[in-house]
């Protein structure tokens, strides 16, 4: 315990790195998933290939994706960008299906009345369908956030500094304190992401708490 208090600075530094490496892909992944999920929903035939295809991406082990990224994308070997790109792929893999299902959960009657009111397809998507799909998408985003925080820690095995570095450091030295600190910090970080998503969801969907 003493060790944790003496090293709050280091833990904080790693936590910030970790937050970026896990959080940025959430945003980018969400932005990519929305059109993909919409496509999967709009064209019935595309649902299975898109959802299954993206789901397949999730089965690629994270360590492999981190290491092979320089080969695929041409980045430098220790570039944290490798982690960001890989995590974005995982986020898209998780969220595409959620977006598709979220849009599908919007009642037909509401969509029909929106069209009857004269809303064009695009306006209808952004002003009616997406807002109503927010709860489902937010639920998926919360799962993706927690998953991301956990997977990013694996990048410690290739030397990318983040909370996972506390795990490898502690393990190499047969020292439990850094590992415990890292686990607690990861859980707290997941919680922080969760709270932010819940708050933003509430803000975006005032009709649910009215």
């Amino acid at each position: 315990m003493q060790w944790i208090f003496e090293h709050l600075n280091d833990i904080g530094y790693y936590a910030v790195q970790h937050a970026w490496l896990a959080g940025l892909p959430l945003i980018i992944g969400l932005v990519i998933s929305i059109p993909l999920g919409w496509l999967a929903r709009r064209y019935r035939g595309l649902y299975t290939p898109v959802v299954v295809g993206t789901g397949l991406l999730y089965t690629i082990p994270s360590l492999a994706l981190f290491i092979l990224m320089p080969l695929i994308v041409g980045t430098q070997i220790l570039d944290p960008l490798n982690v960001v790109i890989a995590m974005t792929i995982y986020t898209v893999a998780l969220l595409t299906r959620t977006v598709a299902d979220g849009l599908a959960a919007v009642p037909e009657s509401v969509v029909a009345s929106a069209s009857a009111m004269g809303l064009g397809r695009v306006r209808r998507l952004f002003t009616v369908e997406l807002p109503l799909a927010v709860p489902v998408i937010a639920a998926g985003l919360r799962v993706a956030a927690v998953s991301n925080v956990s997977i990013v820690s694996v990048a410690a095995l290739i030397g990318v500094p983040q909370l996972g570095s506390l795990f490898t450091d502690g393990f190499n030295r047969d020292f439990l304190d850094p590992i415990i600190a890292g686990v607690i910090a990861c859980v707290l970080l997941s919680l922080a992401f969760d709270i932010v998503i819940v708050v933003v969801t509430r803000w975006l969907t005032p009709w649910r708490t009215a």
Partner: protein
Amino acid sequence: MSIRTLRASLTALLAVAALTLAACGNSNDALKSGGSGSGGPLIVGGANFTESNILAEIYAGALNGAGIDATTKPNIGSRETYLPALKDGSIDLFPEYTGVLRDYYATKSGTTVSATDPAGVYKELQQVLPSYVRTLQYSAAEDKDSVVVTQDTADKYSLKSIGDLAPVAGKLTLGGPPEWKTRETGLPGLKKVYGVEFGKFTVTDAGGPLTLNALLDGRIDAGNLFTTNPQIPAKHLVALEDPKHLFAAQNVVPLVRSDAFSSKLEQTLNKVSKALTTDALVGLVKRVDVDKEDPKDVADSWLSDNNLS
């Protein structure tokens, strides 16, 4: 515009803003990479074992003391993993060991090497080094790989040197890092130089706790530990002798990217290499692994003890 549309567009705007911020890459060094080539501080890397990380901190500390901006990137991985990072500029400087480094580049270029003494190994190293890196002066401090067994195993099979394993190795399990499967100083070397072929090879780690615990637990009969490991004497383990010098000379030497080289760098690190001794290494590793001190603190105290900070 309805409230709903407003909120939705604000969210979209937020997302785009965040993306732009990140794309500019200016807000956080989590997304920055590249060494001094891109104008940042010199990056000193460390491998996936304690001693390497301590040495990285020592180099960085000495350089900072001499006015050269340096930071460390510890725990990167095995040599096979981090040397390409030296090549593409992700790191600038690495603490290395003459023998294994020579063997690594010699295998790559297909050159045969034979020296086993420090000066000879260093000379051959110069011949195989690629142009994008260079070494500075080597230190008297040495840390070699070794094949270690428990006292019981040594007594049971009357083992004193590695060669003694030849008749019994077929029944035994060796534990070591994955790179030992292909390295000249690993399994191929054991077979070639000593005729030792283990019945089974279990991947553990590079002289770390997995190997140590597996050895003490009996999961492996022999393991790869480093000669400066304080647990060898502490746990009454036996490091088998290496009379044919399979592990050659392994003097600590700084490996630096030619682009990052400067004479001030050379002077500073040569002073460090002169002051470093094998005993000092053992003490430093003990402080980090056993006493659980920070590599940086341990490095800083060594530097100030030797008037190098």
